[in-house]
Each structure stands twice: as C-alpha cells, then as structure tokens.
C-alpha cells in the first residue's frame, strides 16, 4: 500500500523540482529568431569570451594551487604541514563576492595598500602602474583564491588513496620524488582533479556577486541585466539556457571522472604513506607555497573585514540589522529542515523500492546544485508568474476577483528555489548516512521483534544522526550565503544578510558591509571545520 503511493510521489517530487530546469531548457528549443539575433549582435560574443577567459583562468588557478598544496600536504613533511592540511580549506568559508569587494577595498586607488606606496615613494596618480583589481584578471584571482579548495580536497583524497606500493614501485624503477609525482601520482589522481576542477568551474559560472561587482559582462550578469534592465524575459531565459548548456557539460565531465576514479583505485591495502622530509630551503618553500593561498584566500580578507567591522559595527548593528539576521536565520532554518525531510523521503523511497524511475528522478533532483542561482531564479519566476497571471485572469473573468501574485514575489518562491538548488546537498549527505546501514541490519531488527517503524527509530535514526545533522548544517550555511536567487526572488523590501552585504558593497559602502559579511563568513566556517575533521579521519584502514 505505502509503496504504491511512495514511488509515484518520488517521481512527482522530482518533476516539481525540475520545473525550473525544464522551463529554461525549453527556451533552448523555442525558436525566437529576433531575440537570438539581438543577443548575437550585442552581448553574446562578449559573454562567451569573458566566460571562457574566466573559466580558463580559474581552471588554471585552482589546478596549480590545489594540486601543489594537495601533493605537499599528502606526501611531504615540512614545518606547519599538519596545520595546512586542514587550514587550506578555510577559503571555502569565504564567498567570492565578499572577498572581491574586500580586495577592492584594500587594493584600489584609495585603498590602504596604494596609499602606502604613494606615501613611501611620493608618487601621485598615474606615476606608477598597479594592476586593476576590477577586471577579468582580478575576478580570476578572487575566484581562484576561494575555489581552489575543491581541487585541493579531491586531489588530496586521491593522493592519500593511492597505494604506497605504486609510488615505491616507481622509485625502484628509477623515478625520483618529482618523477613519481609527474609519471605516477598525477596521472592516477587525474579523474579526481578533473572532478574538483569541474566543481570549481561550476561555481565560477554560477558566480554573480563577484562579476557583477567588477562590472564584467558574463552570463549571470547578462541575465540579470536583460531581465531587470531591459525587461526582456525571453532573452534572459535564452541566456540562462546557454549557461545551462555549459553547466551540464561540466556536470557530465564531473560524473564521468568520478566513475573513472573508481578504476584508478590501485589497492585495498593501506599503510601510512612515506613522508618525504623537506628541510632547510626546500621546507621553507613548501611552507610558503601552502601559506600563500591560505593568507590570500582567507586570513588577509578576514583581517580586513575585522578592521572594518570594528570601525563600523556600532553604526551598523541596529534594529534593522537584527531583523535581517533573523530573516537569514529563519530562512536558512526552514530551508534546511525542509531539504532534509524531502531528502529522507526521497532517499528512503529509493532504498525501500528503488526502481529505475525512482533512481532517475533522484538523479535529476540532485543536478540542481550545479545550476547557477540566477538560472534557478529565472526558471522559478517564469512558471510561477504564469500560474499567478493565469489564476488571476481566470478569477477576474469569472468571479470578478483579483488574486494578485500568490507564488511569485513571495517567500514561497524563494524557498522553492532553495530546494531546487540545495536538495542535492541534503540528498548526498542522507544517502551517505543511509549507505552505512546494511539491509541485514533491518532484517536483524525485524527478527528481534521490531516493526518497520520501530526499526527506523531504534536503528536507522541513531546510526544516521550524524549525516542528518551534517545535511541540516550544510544546507543552512548554503542558504545563508546564497545571493543571486534571493536577490531576484525575494519579496519587496525583504532583506537577508547576504543581500544587504552585497547592496552596501555595491554602493561602495565597503566598510559598512563588513559586519554582515563577517557573520556570513563565521557561519560558513562551521561546515569547513566539519569537513576538515572528516578528511583527517577519512584515510581508509586507519
């Protein structure tokens, strides 16, 4: 009985949450030659070049930082290695748009850094060259500083997962440490590195805050401008659809590399990896190499935000600040509980009666995470507005009554967009937790006199408590940090911390935005700490 209802409702849930993606994808197929031509004549070429440059730059940046640090912290021994192993994840807590305006504040003409140069040298405006932060190059740097941990994390796991034997074999065959790295370790870790870079590039494509603040024309800013500036929703959806194509390519690359990674697994026997001791100047270089990303991606901007906050918090923390903090917290709390409940419903259904349709539906829902917030927002607003207008028109015509906007422009739309984007996170976590519970444990509990519901509460829940909490926490933090979808979909005059920080920064009130930004960073630290704990315990066999 219950499974007869459960299975179709999983498919239905998956369908509901794919509506935004389907809507956008439909715009790809829809022929609208004039819109297309207009985009082609005006902005499309710019968007494509800028996005390509950005992806290339961030790809290169995250690869070099991520792989170098991963290799150093997994097989070398040098001063500070233990600290770096987890601290290198800290930049994950720093949203790109926050680091972007922090750096702008520090390094633009009026900032402390250039002022100091002028003071020391006596130069004036135009007497010296200083790289412009608000440029493609600047955006590449900002995004690389905060996104390299994706590559670092997966590459390091892959290095640690490699058998000590293959490394030792390569050395008995005459490769030195660096030779082993290039000829054995790096090729073996390639799928993991590619997966990490795909994730970083997805985030790059999804970024709105940084590129918008830097005034760069890429897809996300283009969608925003076309929609709100030009009021052309069809063109905006078309741009979103092209962006979606990019994203899906990355999703496919990422999935393929993860599958491949299983085959690159070289052993099931583990022993502690040898630690190549780097001393003297080599040790110092390694230490500096790991210190730089940490400083640039976290410590420096955090200190700057701290100074600003100390200066301004007295003016900023007032009733309205407390209100928007409460907004953020309550949105995040409701979203995380909802996401975990939906995830439990979906993943449990899959475990109990995972048919092909059910598994496929869950995979569809799980792609939501890759979809940029701007695209999700456009994909939510179009069908919702259609529904509202249709309902309103119908009621007016037949009952002379206006329903107004029910779905669009409401918190419901915001929440719906959060689910589309973050359900994947909770699903992944809950699935990992449930995976630890073998089917024989269910059978054991049943044979010891427990009914299915009792089995759930007495066996399953205690075992997956950790995973459920993790899912709650990660969704909570993701929602706190979320910017573009909230910006587009929020009801009039409804603000969150992220939106407020971004608005203040856009108004060049950098110092004033620091309190909100620091709070977001502080909350963002929680999952990073969890993550660093779990990776230090993740080495199999120990």
């Amino acid at each position: 009985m219950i499974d007869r209802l459960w299975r179709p409702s999983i498919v239905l849930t998956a369908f509901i949450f794919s509506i935004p993606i389907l809507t956008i994808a439909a715009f790809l197929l829809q022929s609208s030659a004039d819109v297309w031509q207009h985009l082609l004549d005006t902005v499309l070429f710019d968007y494509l070049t800028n996005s390509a440059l950005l992806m290339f730059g961030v790809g290169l940046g995250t690869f070099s930082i991520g792989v170098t640090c991963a290799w150093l912290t997994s097989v070398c021994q040098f001063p500070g290695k233990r600290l770096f192993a987890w601290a290198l994840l800290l930049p994950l807590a720093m949203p790109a748009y926050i680091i972007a305006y922090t750096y702008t504040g520090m390094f633009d003409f009026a900032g402390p850094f250039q002022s100091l140069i002028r003071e020391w040298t006596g130069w004036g405006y135009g007497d010296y060259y200083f790289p412009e932060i608000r440029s493609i190059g600047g955006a590449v740097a900002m995004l690389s500083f905060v996104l390299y941990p994706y590559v670092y994390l997966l590459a390091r796991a892959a290095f640690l997962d490699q058998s000590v034997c293959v490394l030792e074999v390569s050395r008995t065959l005459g490769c030195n440490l660096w030779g082993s790295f290039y000829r054995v370790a790096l090729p073996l870790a390639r799928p993991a590195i590619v997966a990490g870079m795909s994730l970083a590039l997805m985030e790059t494509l999804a970024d709105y805050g940084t590129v918008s603040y830097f005034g760069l024309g890429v897809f996300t800013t283009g969608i925003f401008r076309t929609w709100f500036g030009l009021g052309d929703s069809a063109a905006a959806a078309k741009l979103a659809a092209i962006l979606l194509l990019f994203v899906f390519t990355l999703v496919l690359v990422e999935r393929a590399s993860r599958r491949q990674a299983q085959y690159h697994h070289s052993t099931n026997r583990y022993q502690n990896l040898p630690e190549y001791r780097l001393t003297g100047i080599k040790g110092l270089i390694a230490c500096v190499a790991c210190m730089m990303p940490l400083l640039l991606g976290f410590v420096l901007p955090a200190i700057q935000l701290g100074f600003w906050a100390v200066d301004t918090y007295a003016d900023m923390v007032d009733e309205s600040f407390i209100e928007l903090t409460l907004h953020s917290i309550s949105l995040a709390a409701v979203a995380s509980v909802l996401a975990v409940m939906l995830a439990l419903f979906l993943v449990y259904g899959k475990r109990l009666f995972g048919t092909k349709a059910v598994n496929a539906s869950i995979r569809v829902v799980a792609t939501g995470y890759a979809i940029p917030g701007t695209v999700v927002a456009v994909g939510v607003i179009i069908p919702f507005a259609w529904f509202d207008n249709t309902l309103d028109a119908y009621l007016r015509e037949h009952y002379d009554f206006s329903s107004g906007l029910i779905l669009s422009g409401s918190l419901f739309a915001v929440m719906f967009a959060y689910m589309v984007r973050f359900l994947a996170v909770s699903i992944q976590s809950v699935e990992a937790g449930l995976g630890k519970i073998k089917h024989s444990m269910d059978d054991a509990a049943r044979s010891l006199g427990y009914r299915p519901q009792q089995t759930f509460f007495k066996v399953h829940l205690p075992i997956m408590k950790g995973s459920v909490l993790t899912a709650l926490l990660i969704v909570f933090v993701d929602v706190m940090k979320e910017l573009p979808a909230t910006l587009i979909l929020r009801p009039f005059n409804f603000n969150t911390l992220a939106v407020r920080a971004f608005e203040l920064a856009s108004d060049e009130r950098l110092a004033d935005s620091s309190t909100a930004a620091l709070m977001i960073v502080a909350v963002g630290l929680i999952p990073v700490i969890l993550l660093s704990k779990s990776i230090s315990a993740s080495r199999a066999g120990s």
Partner: protein
Amino acid sequence: MTAQLDVQNIDVSYGSHQVLNQVSFTLEPGEIGCMLGPSGCGKTTVLRAIAGFEPVSRGHILVDHREFSSPSFCLPTEKRNIGMVFQDFALFPNMSVAENIGFGLRQWKPKDKQRRIQELLAMIGMPTSAQAYPHQLSGGQQQRVALARAMAPHPGILLLDEPFSSMDIELREQLAREVRNILKQENITAVLVTHDQNEAFAIADNICVINEGRIEQQDSGYNLYHRPGNRFVADFIGQGVMIPAEVVGEFMVKTELGLITNDMPIDSNLLGETVDVLIRPDDVIHDDDSQETAIVVEKAFRGADFLYFLRTDSGTEILCLAPSHHNHKINERIGIRLNLHHLVIFDRT
C-alpha cells in the same frame, strides 16, 4: 521454548523466477539442520522464507503446528520469535556489545535483561567485553556477539546464514564446533546455511543438499558421503570418480580394477547391465604388492597424506589417498588395491 519446524512443499519465486521448488523438511525440537549447496541454489531463500522475509507461493511453514507462512498468509518477521545470525553479522555499529545483545529484550525487566546479557556474555566466553563496540572486536568475536544477540530472547528457531563465511578457514571448523556446543547447551532448533560441507558436517545433525531450488537429499553427513542418493550428491559431497562396471552377480560387479563384492544385494534388474560405481579416494589403497597398477598423473601433498591422481592402463582416472611416507614421482607406476565393501551404483539411463 525450543520448537519443531515443519517446512511443507514450499515454492518461492522472485518475480517470474522460481527459486525454490517443493522444498520440504522437518526438524525436531533441539535438532540442528543445514541447507548445503552451491551458491545460487536457493539455500538462503529457505532461511528468508522461514524468517518471513519472503512469502511462499505454495506450501506451508509450520512452527510447533502453528502456521507461519502459506500462500495466503505471512506472519510478520517480528512476530515469529525467531533469531537470525547474518553473513555480515549486522551488528549495530553505534551500540556496545551489551546493547546489541540486549536489543531484542526491550520488553524484559531491567534486572532480567542484565542477567540474560551476562549469561550470554559468559556463554560466548566474552564476559569482560560488554562495553566494547563492534569495530573493536575481531571477526570471531563479532560472530559470537551476533549469535548471542540472536539467542537472547530465547527464540523458538535460530537461523544462521553462512555465519562462518567471512572467517579464516582454520577458524571455521573450530567455530562451527563451538557454535554447535552452544546450540546444544541451549537445546535450540537451528537451521544453518552453508556451501562448505565440512562446516555442515561439523555442526549439523541433519543436512539437506539443495540444488537449483530442490532438495536432492536429506540425511546425516555420514550417509551423504557414503550413501549418496543421486549423482549430484555423489559429486557435490567429497571427492571421487565414477568408473564403469558390469553387474555380474547378486553381490558382485566387475570393473577394470577387478571384481568388487557389495555388502548387500544389487537390484536384480541391473544384472548384466553396465553401471557407474562411485570410487572415493579412500577406497583406493596404495599397495606395492598389488597386481593392479596405475600411473601417477598428479599429486597433492596434504601433510598426513598424499592425494594421488592416477591413470589406469585403459585411461580411467581415479583418486587415491596414500599415507604421507609413500612419496612417488609423477609418471611412476604404483600398485593399487580397492578396499570397498559398500557400493554406490548409478545406472546409466
């Protein structure tokens, strides 16, 4: 507490695939039964049907004359009062040993529960491990905790699904004997599933050899080895070869290794017919004085003895178990003699 198990002609199907076909057997209270067969033969399905995890599409499962399963009825597992030990033990990783063992005793009074846990811990020889967690235990210890957990609520029937398969081979038979002692001590009716005949011999009173969803033979280990009922059982249990023979008298067959006398009359319909006779390695004795000889094709040193693979002049291959000090070379010709009093005969139709 201990119960009689009566499985009557059950069929079990997964979709259109019929896994069990007319399986029947009975275990008296306190008797230990074993489902023995190659992998994929359906033996685990028998257990799952008894446990109530799989419904039967034909036949009945009765425990102490009470119906547990029929095509129209399936008593839920949790109401069957059965214990089950799983292949992977399925210990709850978040609970201590004592909590695992006490898991099925939630309706007991705390004092009784504590006493029962202590009693079982003592029985499995781990009285000091109550507070340990499963991941801190060795495989053998986990296995004993799983057994204790299944036995704690005094189940009427205990089911064991390949309980030793993840153990080292050296440990298996020792553990099987230990488990048998524990089961006998508690006088519990048990069904064990295994593909390892030595394990089955070590633990069971009564063994069902299963093949492709059917019971081929239900018997004691001794009889399965010495009196196999059909070619499958003869082949599956122990080692041996079939050699052709002609029935030449009421008690006698003629083989290329000479005349063999049976200890009981042979079916008179077979007189004059050519039949197959099962020759076990221990039926062939190495004897340097014997007239009959064969060539060593291959040999396996097994410590106390050698297993020789021999070829007779006519090309028939037979096995011979010889004491370890008779060390012969490959291609050497050695004398053999049959020492066989009970014939296992299969007609060739």
